[in-house]
């Protein structure tokens, strides 16, 4: 099949699986907290629902930006799918995509003019200082394997065993990053319920639909990178099982922990990043 078809196929899989995994996470959290919880496809239905709802735009919004930022979020995560499952490109590009994701989070919050969005925007700036070092775990993988190209990393692992075993601290750092992107997590300060819905507060209808669409893809992609880079060489069923396990584990953590306040969250992440980077480098040298 041609490239275009491949991209569309992978984006569709990423979106559907990501949405269902989000639903699964909510379900597991609910069961842990002794609630029935919504059906597993609830997140997906929400996304579809927003696409057919009436769109309203705040009078205070910074106009083209406010709309374009949702499209931007879509574009960067579709780009991530192209770099990841479709072409197996460079990890450095993921790094760039993640940096731009933080920017979009920042500006989706501030372009609406809502005070909740602005608070989320300030938190996005702070948390970027914590999450980007966590994403720098990819550099440690480079130091270990000598390549940034995903297909070469998979080959490396088939020869030397999974990276999860040889650089566990790096895997832990990446897991903390994944954790911080999941809803209701202790590190989800940009979407904490104390600021309504964070940067999404003022996005309604179609725009919210786009945001949720991209977030599902983002979740799938983060799990995909984790599984590919740290375990490697999985078949699709293996990916699915791995993703379900990680999502369930994240749900367990989220259900039993409170949301940290921004300072604690950032400091915890920075500490983990420091321990992870320093520890991994020491292990590599040793």
């Amino acid at each position, binding site marked *: 099949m041609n490239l275009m078809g491949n991209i569309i196929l992978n984006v569709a899989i990423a979106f559907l699986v990501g949405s269902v995994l989000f639903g699964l996470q909510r379900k597991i959290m609910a069961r842990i907290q002794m609630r029935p919880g919504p059906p597993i496809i609830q997140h997906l239905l929400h996304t579809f629902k927003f696409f057919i709802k009436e769109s309203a735009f705040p009078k*205070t*919004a*910074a*106009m*083209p*930006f*406010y709309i*374009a930022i949702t499209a*931007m979020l879509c574009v*960067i995560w579709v*780009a991530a799918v192209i*770099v990841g499952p479709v072409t197996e*490109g*460079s990890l*450095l*590009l993921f*790094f*760039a*995509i993640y*940096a*731009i994701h*933080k*920017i979009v989070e*920042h*500006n989706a919050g*501030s*372009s*609406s*003019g809502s*005070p909740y969005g*602005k*608070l989320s*925007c*300030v938190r996005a*700036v*702070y948390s*970027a*200082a914590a999450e*980007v070092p966590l994403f*720098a775990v990819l*550099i440690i993988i*480079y*130091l270990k394997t*000598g*390549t*940034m*190209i995903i297909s*070469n990393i998979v080959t490396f692992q088939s020869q030397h065993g999974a990276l999860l075993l040889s650089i566990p601290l790096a895997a832990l750092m990446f897991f903390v990053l994944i954790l911080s992107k999941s809803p209701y997590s202790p590190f989800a300060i940009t979407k904490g319920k104390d600021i309504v819905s964070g940067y999404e507060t003022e996005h309604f209808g179609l725009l919210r639909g786009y945001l949720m669409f991209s977030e599902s893809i983002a979740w799938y992609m983060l799990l995909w990178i984790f599984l590919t880079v740290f375990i490697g060489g999985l078949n699709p069923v293996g990916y699915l099982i791995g993703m379900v396990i990680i999502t369930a584990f994240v749900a367990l953590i989220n259900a039993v922990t409170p949301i940290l306040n921004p300072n604690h969250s950032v400091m915890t992440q920075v500490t983990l990043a420091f321990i992870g980077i320093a520890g991994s480098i020491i292990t590599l040298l040793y």
Partner: protein
Amino acid sequence: MDISILGGQMLGIIPLGDIVLYFTPFNLFMFAAALAFTTLIAISKTESQVEAEFGTLKNREVKVDKSEFKIRRFLAIVCGLATAGAMVTGDLFDFTLFVALIAIVNIGIVAAVKEVDVLDSAFQYGLIAMIATLPLFGGAAIILASAGTISLLQLLQIPNSTMILYGSLLLFIGVAGETGVAPFFATKAEMFRTPGSPFLLIIHLSSLLVIVRTIEILLILNKPF
């Protein structure tokens, strides 16, 4: 070492005399992202804020006034273009110059708000940025002296040495001081909560993108393999 194990397949180079621009998917993506945000900033209005008035039931709308809007938009566009340039340049001096330009423009964007606290924060950021020019240009100069070239594609072929490691550490400190700390000084003055978000976005954008690009450059300079 080959550039294609870092940023992906080399798509092409643009040799402009000494200055060579090179494109890998990585550079191209960041270049396109910087340009896209710059375009959006150029065509966007600023957002306004509706605040409750104290003591009455009325609301007050806080806006960016026209003259401030114009100067800040101009500076933001310059900053965006400089960021885009820093993403694709294959020349170390060019990169340092773009970074220095980003720093100057960031000072301007922060300082365009005429409030004592904001100006204070901008002043302190300015001091940091000026101090950071020492490691930034100094690091580049030490790398030049040790390797005899500043073209990244040439530096790729040059074996590791202590002086290059030292120079690249200085370079990293310089970049961190010039643009890395910019968002914190903007936050310090509560800038992100004042109207004019599209212009403040570029501070954050340039800082993050330049740091990502610096990591690529550091990996090129100090080849771990």
